[in-house]
């Protein structure tokens, strides 16, 4: 590929690429993200490509393997353009039919369409599907338009025009001002104003400065950064280039989690392609701006996502946080001024530069602007990656996008990843934004949303997250290492029916101490799961302590299994399946569980065809 030396070179290439794409009648967009790969999308892509060649349609049909479309549970997903026909759960064997019917004959294949679980009707296009309808997919929608391994695709849809606009005449101060007025706040969890961070770095003394992209994403169940980096790596690179120009950095790093092989691969290819085109390296687009990016693979610990731990890890040291009395924008990587931003933060930059801060600030709430990608999971109908304007209510996300409960009624939501908090259903009016959620004792964090129904025990939830944080705490400072350990000890007591009312006070006192005094944000936020459940579900704690009951029937030590004699038909399945021989009864007569023998394994409950097993 030829090198691009000037801005007009870039524009000429863009025009050429766009004209080339006009030659195709049909585009088949196939999702090749990590989620869909798990459901054999790789094979499907090969079959579709093979079929296109076999039919001699290479000049007419463009096959594009893209990053994640967000609705992974419906994968693999195929979208046929024009017409935007949305096929889900497509199997490799369907390739031929799609080419023959839809591409050649223009027929829609009914059985591959999405069925609305509420109405039971099939839906033809993505924009009509309730899951997508209530979203505003500024970043995620771009995933559909590009093959992540093709810089040409990215350029064809207008990519790298933000950096050319920047270099053509926006001073660093002007860029920073634009980012400031846009009101962009960091998407990595803290919500720190990005423009202010950049300004401080630009002002910091020193010639050598760095920009880093944080793609460590260690939260269990989170994959928003993965999908952006994997699906549209050039967007992130372009954001970093603009940031580097704004703070006068010459070197950037992408610190990406080792467990994300596809993301590592795609960003590596992207950097390689950008270098070959001359978009990274010396004198970019014929200007004095020089910048390059290196990829570093993460150490695999959750705490390595914390800014100072990440920098230590990049320097080849143990990934442990250090005190931040001097900010990393002044004393960061190798003691040089450094800007660290999250993947999604970087990805927002090009459109701010192109469309202006006003455009960006028109979305979102008063103090949280733009859109946010969320990983929606739990006991709801639609799960997946969701992008909504900041300030959208929890209600909308859970019931409109998420489609409401799967069975039992919804009672709470956990937001913000392991160190976020739990909010009860009467708080679902709250907008998803930094300040409102923080005030309510939770946070938006990196964007994890776990919906919980009546079968979830809130004490158990707190215990689960504490256990995660205990494992992931680096162990350096006392409040976090010992504090989490003791909180977990107390909560475990409570779930086992050994709790006392005094322990609640102790738990609260300890939780506050940990959040006030821990060294890094892992410890400072570790008490959130405890404090928020104590605040909103005190009755549930009380039931565990004074009545020795777990209302949700989750805490094994506090539940008893019994058979409802009214419902039991005496079929005998449970008796046969119980590994502890705790069930007795005659054929066709109600059976009984011997509480002495019952080990509460739950096998009878899952085996019973009549839901006669009660857990109370």
């Amino acid at each position, binding site marked *: 590929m030829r090198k691009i030396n000037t801005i007009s070179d870039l524009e000429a290439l863009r025009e050429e690429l766009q004209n080339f794409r006009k030659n195709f009648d049909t585009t088949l967009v196939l999702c090749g993200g990590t989620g869909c790969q798990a459901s054999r999308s790789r094979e499907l892509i090969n079959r579709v490509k093979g079929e296109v060649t076999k039919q001699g349609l290479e000049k007419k049909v463009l096959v594009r393997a893209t990053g994640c479309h967000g609705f992974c549970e419906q994968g693999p997903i195929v979208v046929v353009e024009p017409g935007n026909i949305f096929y889900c759960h497509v199997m490799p064997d369907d390739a031929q039919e799609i080419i023959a019917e839809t591409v050649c004959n223009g027929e829609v294949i009914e059985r591959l369409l999405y069925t609305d679980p509420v109405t039971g009707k099939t839906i033809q296009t993505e924009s009509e599907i309730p899951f997508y309808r209530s979203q505003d997919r500024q970043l995620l929608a771009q995933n559909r338009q590009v093959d992540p391994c093709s810089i040409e695709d990215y350029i064809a849809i207008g990519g790298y025009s933000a950096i050319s606009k920047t270099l053509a005449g926006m001073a660093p101060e002007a860029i920073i001002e634009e980012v400031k007025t846009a009101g962009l706040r960091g998407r990595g969890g803290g919500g720190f104003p990005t423009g202010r961070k950049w300004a401080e770095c630009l002002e910091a003394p020193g010639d050598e400065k760095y920009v880093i992209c944080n793609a460590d994403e260690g939260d269990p169940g989170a994959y928003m950064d993965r999908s952006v980096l994997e699906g549209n790596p050039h967007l992130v690179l372009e954001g970093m280039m603009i940031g580097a120009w704004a703070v006068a950095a010459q070197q950037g790093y992408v610190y990406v989690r080792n467990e994300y092989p596809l993301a590592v691969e795609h960003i590596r290819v992207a950097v390689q392609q950008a270098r070959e085109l001359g978009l990274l390296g010396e004198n970019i687009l014929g200007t004095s701006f020089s910048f390059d990016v290196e990829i570093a693979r993460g150490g695999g610990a959750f705490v390595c996502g914390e800014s100072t731990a990440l920098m230590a890890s990049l320097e080849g040291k143990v990934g442990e946080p250090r*005190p931040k009395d*001097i900010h990393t924008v002044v004393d960061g990587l190798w003691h040089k001024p450094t800007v660290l931003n999250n993947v999604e933060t970087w990805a927002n930059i090009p459109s701010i530069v192109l469309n202006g801060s006003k455009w960006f600030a028109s979305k979102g709430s008063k103090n949280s602007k733009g859109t946010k990608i969320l990983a929606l999971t739990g006991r709801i109908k639609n799960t997946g990656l969701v992008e909504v304007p900041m300030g959208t209510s929890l209600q909308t996300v859970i019931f409109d996008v998420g489609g409401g409960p799967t069975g039992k009624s919804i009672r709470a939501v956990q937001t913000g990843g392991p160190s976020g908090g739990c909010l009860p259903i009467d708080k679902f009016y709250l907008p998803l934004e930094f300040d409102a959620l923080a005030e309510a004792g939770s946070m938006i964090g990196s964007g994890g949303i776990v919906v919980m129904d009546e079968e979830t025990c809130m004490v158990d939830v707190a215990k689960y997250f504490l256990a995660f944080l*205990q494992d992931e705490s680096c162990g*350096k400072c*006392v409040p976090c*290492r*010992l504090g989490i*350990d003791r909180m977990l000890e107390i909560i475990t007591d409570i779930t086992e029916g050994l709790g006392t009312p005094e322990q609640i006070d102790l738990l609260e006192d300890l939780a506050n101490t940990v959040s*006030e*005094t821990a060294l890094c944000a892992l410890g400072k936020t570790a008490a959130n799961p405890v404090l928020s459940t104590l605040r909103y579900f005190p009755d549930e704690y009380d039931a565990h302590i004074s009545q020795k009951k777990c209302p949700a029937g989750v805490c094994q030590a506090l539940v008893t299994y019994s058979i409802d004699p009214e419902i039991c038909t005496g079929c005998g399945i449970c008796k046969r399946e119980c590994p502890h021989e705790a069930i007795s009864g005659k054929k066709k007569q109600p059976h009984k569980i011997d509480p002495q023998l019952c080990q509460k394994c739950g096998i009878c409950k899952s085996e019973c065809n009549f839901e006669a097993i009660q857990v109370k």
Partner: protein
Amino acid sequence: MIQRVAIKIDGMIIRAPKGTSVLDAALDYGICIPHLCRVPYLSDIGACRLCIVEHVVNGRSKITTSCTLLVKEDMVILSNTEEVRKLRRNIAELIVAEAPNSRAIQDVALRCGVKEVRYPFRNSDCILCGRCVSVCTGRFGVKAIGFVGRGNERRVETPFNMRSELCRDCGACIDVCPMAVVPCGGPMKTGEERLCGNCEPKMAFAEQTPGFCVWCDLGEGFQCERYAMGLRK
């Protein structure tokens, strides 16, 4: 010439050379801020969190460790507020619950006002303060020991679990180890651990002048920096 800056700790104006930590500056003036992981003249790791103070910026105060906070002109520090005392007490309680069998730790707890321990005692051999690692790597540049593992698994270890070639048998790690000082009454048996409390009368004087170093003797036990620096003699 050494540049000096003026800061205010608990209302008292203190002048300290630029680049010193608030903890050092305070100790120099005899203001008592309890601390544990700090080893004099070495860079601080901010791990024990006992040395917390309130740092007042624009009328809002923030809890931070004084050993990692460098002095700055016109800085306002409160080292002995109700809030600080409470948090410090809670932290010390966590530490002493792990290590009742160390006189040094018992002394720290007493100095921080721990009167009861609300957790079951555990009898650990190491409280991971990191003083030994600091001395070995920071003072001697040897790295014969270091931390491995994270969370509950964290421990101090020699490289590859073998005696390091680098170790010079200097014994500095043992000198600074708070676990090496047995309580006066001898080791406590499992199940019989308690707050020793024998030195409580010594605190009486300190309680009347809270925040000021009265060479409380406890400091010797918990290896307060003032003793360690040999200021006494």
